[in-house]
């Protein structure tokens, strides 16, 4: 039976979809069978980040409502054969979602994959509630800024009251990803530092991802940054994916390490 992981944030634009794409691919590279599901009904993006937009024929709603088989709708990634993708509907909206159908869909996916990763929509409305309903774990993506943290705090609160696991008396394990860390701004004190964020949200950290300009290009090209071995963000995503697969990977200090050697020397003279 696979593990269902919801990627949530509350606020939009913090990098949920980018994180989902990269971590999904990272898990697949670790040799685990993984499927990423776009739950952002009506606004799908994940297909583009994975470079699969031209291959979507059937989406999630077709599977749930129109009797299309899961096999037909699942798209295998060219980048790694362990990774599959299930698209969100672009024409319907979130009102088509229904708990029983989602439950069946997720059970079917769990039977086939080791990891089922759900990309939650921004906000905390019904689309979000349906995403977290059957999750075993949650990856909480935040940016080091107050509004992102407050929104994810709210999202965690809803997760802790509305998911099925919680209603059954268990707990959903939550892990924090701090995304888009700008080392310079952290050092100058303009950005919240990780300790403060961890104290506020009080959930365990699973990774820190530095800001990386390469991500925009990677998204446009449909090649997740994790494929770029030189990218700091890509390396960070790789570490997170390994941690999710159960490996012990040491944390790397992305807050101070970023300034390259030359920049450091420059900094000494400036």
């Amino acid at each position, binding site marked *: 039976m696979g593990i269902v992981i919801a990627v949530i944030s509350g606020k939009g634009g913090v990098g949920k979809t980018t994180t989902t794409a990269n971590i999904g691919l990272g898990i697949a590279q670790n040799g685990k069978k993984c499927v990423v599901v776009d739950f952002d009904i009506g606004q799908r993006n994940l297909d583009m980040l994975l470079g699969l937009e031209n291959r979507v024929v059937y989406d999630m709603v077709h599977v749930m409502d129109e009797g299309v088989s899961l096999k037909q709708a699942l798209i295998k990634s060219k980048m790694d054969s362990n990774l599959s993708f299930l698209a969100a509907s672009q024409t319907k909206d979130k009102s088509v979602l229904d708990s029983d159908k989602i439950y069946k869909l997720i059970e079917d996916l769990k039977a086939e994959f080791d990891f089922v990763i759900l990309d939650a929509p921004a906000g905390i409305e019904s689309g979000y509630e349906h995403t977290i309903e059957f999750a075993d774990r949650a990856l909480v993506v935040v940016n080091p800024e107050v509004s992102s943290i*407050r929104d994810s705090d709210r999202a965690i609160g809803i997760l802790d009251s509305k998911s099925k696991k919680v209603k059954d008396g268990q707990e959903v394990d939550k892990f924090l990803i701090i995304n888009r860390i700008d080392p310079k701004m952290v050092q100058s004190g303009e950005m919240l530092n990780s300790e403060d964020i961890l104290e506020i949200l009080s959930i365990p950290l699973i990774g820190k991802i530095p800001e990386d300009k390469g991500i925009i290009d990677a998204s446009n090209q449909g090649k997740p940054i994790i494929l770029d071995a030189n990218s700091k963000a890509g390396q960070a995503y790789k570490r997170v994916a390994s941690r999710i697969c159960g490996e012990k990977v040491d944390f790397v200090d992305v807050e101070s390490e970023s300034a390259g050697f030359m920049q450091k020397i420059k900094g000494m003279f400036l």
Partner: protein
Amino acid sequence: MKTKQYSVKIFEIELEDDDSFISFFDKNYLFFQNNLIVIKGQQRDSIKKYLDEKNLKYIFNLEIPVQKKQMKSLELEPKKEQEVVKKVEKPKTNLKVIDKLVRSGQEIKIDGDLLLLNRVNSGGSIIINGTLIVTQIVDGSIRCNGDFMMLQASSKANIVFHDVEVDNKFLQDKLNRVELIDDEIVITPALKEKNWV
């Protein structure tokens, strides 16, 4: 010869029927553990057995040697005790202890007293009619109408005590006690913080 003199608290009660006697003591026996209970009325084994079980000291039909002036107040004493009992009981039954993070969007609404052993995050709120103690920092909003509240708040917090907004500046460093004295809000920092931790 060895003598000792004690001044003892005596609780006098008139025995009417067993049921009301026992139900009264079931509720309140904790308060009479250090008292000598003097029972007026028929000496009954059921009562003796009950009091022995509760480990209370008692005596039947004792003439209490008190001066006449004081007798009056003594006659009133059972009533007074009951009042005291009520007062002591109130916070005891109403105090709630919560050790959960109050996250954004969550609201704790309580009529009695609250001891919160965790943070109140930005966007979280507590509305309370009793006394409030929060042992960790408050970033969210607090509405308190109790006798006093004790907390440490950051600059983001919004604290209202008896419908008056409290300036965060005064609440930032340490645990502070906020109370209403003669229609004025008085804030005293709790100096011996260690006692609370």
